[in-house]
């Protein structure tokens, strides 16, 4: 391994020293092909991000693929209804590894303003793992670019050997994610227990009247 200072010095001389891991990550993070997949309002801001003003092509991500088989990145842009959730999971399953998910906007993160609705899934992370969450309703194109760069940084930090290597490089790769089925009242299962774990309820614990309803 070469130390960082020497590497910088060499770079000034026109010699680029790199490791296979860096080269590999550099290649992956600069050619993320998103799935051409819009659900609701946020999709319009996603389209606006790819257009002339914000130009996502500067980050190597202008190639929106209509087929999940050719895409690396799923930008979940919009409300996931319970009727749509199985299709979203199926699309994710169809994407080849390595694959990443950005949950764009309040609805994709948690159901957002529509979370009280009977047909709205309270966050796509109940079924598939999400790498980056971008809050906003809808997030501005700049916020999407910012989230996109956060994803690039995350990819840059990935190792290709050792325990920390991505799942798809392990001998036993992660299996398919469960596709929920339509049932009489709700989706079944209501969440993928391997992915989703409801955290401690932060606020209710502090109330003097535990578990009671505020007047």
């Amino acid at each position: 391994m070469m130390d960082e200072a020497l590497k910088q010095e060499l770079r000034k001389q026109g010699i680029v020293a790199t490791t296979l891991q860096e080269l590999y990550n550099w290649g992956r993070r600069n050619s993320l092909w998103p799935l051409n997949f819009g659900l609701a309002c946020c999709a319009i801001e996603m389209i606006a991000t790819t257009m002339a003003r914000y130009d996502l092509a500067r980050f190597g991500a202008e190639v929106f693929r209509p087929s999940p088989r050719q895409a690396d990145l799923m930008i979940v842009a919009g409300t996931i209804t319970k009727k749509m959730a199985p299709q979203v999971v199926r699309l994710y399953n169809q994407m080849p590894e390595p694959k990443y998910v950005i949950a764009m906007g309040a609805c994709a993160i948690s159901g957002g303003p529509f979370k009280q609705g009977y047909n709205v899934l309270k966050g796509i992370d109940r079924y598939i793992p999400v790498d980056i969450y971008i809050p906003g309703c809808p997030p501005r194109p700049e916020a999407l670019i910012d989230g996109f760069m956060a994803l690039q940084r995350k990819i840059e930090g990935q190792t290709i050997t050792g325990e920390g290597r991505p799942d798809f490089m392990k001998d036993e790769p992660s299996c398919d994610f469960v596709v929920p089925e339509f049932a009489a009242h709700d989706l079944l299962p209501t969440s993928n227990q391997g992915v989703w774990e409801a955290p401690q309820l932060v606020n209710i614990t502090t109330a003097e009247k535990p578990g009671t309803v505020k007047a």
Partner: protein
Amino acid sequence: MSLESLKERLEAKTGCKLEIVENPSVSAQHSLLVQAKDAVAVATLLRDDEGYNYCSNVTGVDRPAREVSEKVKVMKLVEGVETEVEETQKRMTAAYLEVVYHLFSMTKHKYMVVLRMRTLDREARVHLPSLTPVWRSAEFQEREVYDLYGVLFNGHPDLRRILMWDEFEDFPMRRDYVEPDDYEYEPTAHDAVLRKTNAHWAEAGEGEVGQ
């Protein structure tokens, strides 16, 4: 062109009984209540003779029974003398589902007619005639009313669920609909939300939250 004269004309032509439902708000959009059996005849007349060729909006409304208290005068024996006493009585209103049609004319005039139909109750006798054969624009909207309220439209060409999936059994827009229980995590604990969250954990057998 007042609603009364329209009602009289329609009654004269079809021989059915119509009722004007007053709208107390300032919009003064009063409506015509039509019996289910006469609905298609009245609708056809409205379209062909009165020029209402455009059905803009079809709305389902759920009216569950609710308790109303009203003051009634009753004769009572007070200290041996029969006197008139005012008494509040509580009674339950009738429960029904309602379908409201907003009708306009695209070519003749710019008046609006609001047509209402009511089912007999909310559970079993929820059949109403479909007005899709009269106004095609009601097709998807009547399917929606069926999907969300469970009103069965006789004579609808394609009555299936439209918004929810086919396996779904409930009618979610009814006011007594109970949502599926998926409130295990709620950081902003509002009353209604907290109630649902508590119910979730109680059902999961983990007791009340926050203990």
